[in-house]
């Protein structure tokens, strides 16, 4: 090989890198396009030629969405239900995961097998019965009704059990010798040692719940109880066929979770890799 050939090989490497970056930009372009379009006045949005940056930059659609529609209420509903799902899922899974991992009690193994088996069950098949159940309990169109069926998240308890299994036994034995109750062992030893996992699972559960569509869509018929993910697709009369306005509502709906990801990238990545490891 001559120096030219060596340079050619380097060129091929550089070409692949450039291509990858180009693909990334093209990949993310629709998101950019959606945001940019939401910042244009309606008459500019429907122009036949492509304008990559607004001629007139305007926030009028966002202003409209925030003041003239129920988006504020939808935000509250989303926050309340997502927080509710997160706290309930993570706390019950942590307690139960600790018990399965560290304590001996009858039906321990069958319970764990049942949870593992429930992985295979697609929760979408339960929509009819969830609806009937919530209707019978009078929980349709309430936060509780939105929250409850979303609490099926076997990944969380399985991850907790695995992490608790890996805590060296010495800690528990020392604590037991110090007459600590199981609750304080869990709260003062096991939980702090796995704080990273708790954070990761919480963030991911929050995002998942915020993004949920099927169940919140079914559980709510009154527009003032809708979560924002559902609301932006359902209420068309407030928006009409106003493309930029609809896009601004979409941006408002997606912004919180995108922000959560950008702030907590590592945790989100960790949680996803963990959950896949379980499925494998």
């Amino acid at each position, binding site marked *: 090989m001559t120096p030219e050939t060596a340079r050619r090989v380097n060129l091929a490497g550089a070409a692949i890198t450039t291509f990858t*970056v180009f693909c*990334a930009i093209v990949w993310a372009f629709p998101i950019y396009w959606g945001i940019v379009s939401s910042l244009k006045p309606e008459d500019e949005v429907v122009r036949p030629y492509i304008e990559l940056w607004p001629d007139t930059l305007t926030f009028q659609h966002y202003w409209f969405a925030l003041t003239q529609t129920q988006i504020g209420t939808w935000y509250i509903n989303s926050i309340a239900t997502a927080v509710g799902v997160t706290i309930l899922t993570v706390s*019950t899974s942590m307690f139960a995961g600790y018990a399965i991992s560290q*304590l001996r009690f009858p039906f*321990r193994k069958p319970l764990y097998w049942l949870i593992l088996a429930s992985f295979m069950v697609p929760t979408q098949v339960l929509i*009819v019965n969830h609806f009937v159940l919530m209707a019978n309990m009078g929980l349709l169109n309430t936060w509780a009704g939105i929250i409850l069926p979303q609490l099926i998240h076997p990944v969380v308890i399985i991850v907790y059990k695995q992490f608790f299994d890996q805590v060296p036994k010495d800690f528990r034995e020392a604590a037991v010798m110090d007459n600590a109750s199981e609750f304080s062992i869990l709260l003062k030893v096991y939980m702090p040692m796995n704080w990273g996992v708790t954070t990761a699972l919480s963030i991911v559960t929050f995002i998942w719940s915020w993004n949920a569509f099927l169940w919140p869509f079914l559980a709510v018929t009154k527009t003032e109880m809708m979560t924002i993910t559902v609301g932006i697709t359902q209420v068309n009369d407030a928006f009409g066929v106003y493309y930029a306005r609809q896009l601004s509502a979409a941006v408002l709906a997606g912004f919180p979770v995108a922000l959560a990801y950008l702030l907590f990238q590592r945790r989100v990545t960790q949680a996803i890799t963990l959950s896949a490891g379980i499925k494998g």
Partner: protein
Amino acid sequence: MIRNTRKETLVAFVLIAPFVAIYGLIFIYPTIDMFILSFQDAPLIGEGTWVGWENYTRLPRDRRFDTAFWNTAYFVALSVVPGTLVALFIALGISRLSGRLQALVLALFFLPYILPVSVVYRIWDWTLNFQFGIGMHLFDWMGIDRVPIFKMTGWFMPAVAFVTVWWTAGFSILLFLAGLRAIPQEIYEASSLDNASRWTTFTKITWPLLWPVTALVLTIQLILQLKIFDQVYLFSVGGRPNDNLVMVYYIFQRAFVNNDGGRAAAIAVVLFVIVIIVSVLNFQLMRFAERRP
């Protein structure tokens, strides 16, 4: 370690009680209820009459069930393997980068996954809008007529599969990146000393060593796409829902549009069984493949 069994059991039960209570209420009970309901002729809410296997025997003659079943299969074929391959090649590209550039590129590819499905819907509905969508310019450049993509049956499924791959690739990319990272750099150094071309390195070294991850991704994607609903429903609003049915959509339609809880439950059970069979088959196939050497 000496354990106080009675006390331990009590404490354990207290700890698992909230979880078990919720699980029982939200999971066990509705699952059993689903089976029971499937044997009844019942409205969505309210009492029904026992009809035995009738809801099931109607299915083979049910045209909409046929559509839903084959659409789901079609959708799976369009999204699982292409989605996995796309994610693999993106991961290969990303793994060659490092530092800030890598983090940026990964974030760009991953961002769609974080977004709610309705936001994804709005973005692509706008981008591929028949009148004003920027995607229409692609048709112009290629010299063919513009197509109202989501309104035309032939285009609908491929387009939704495309959007789905765009939306969910991030997850698979992460898994592939982890798998690629697990291959020691020394192996690649040895192969460069062994005169392996780029293609040989990929086919003889990277691909075989990555196979467990690839298989995992395929499995997860397969089971995920069998359960699809959200994007199919959203994109077919204003179009032709009955042509675009997938299994979960059909369950929804039977229950909430036709007010037929019993028949919906029967379809749900069928889907439930399909997913379980596929999961178990997959699991066994993985075990078998691992034992081969």
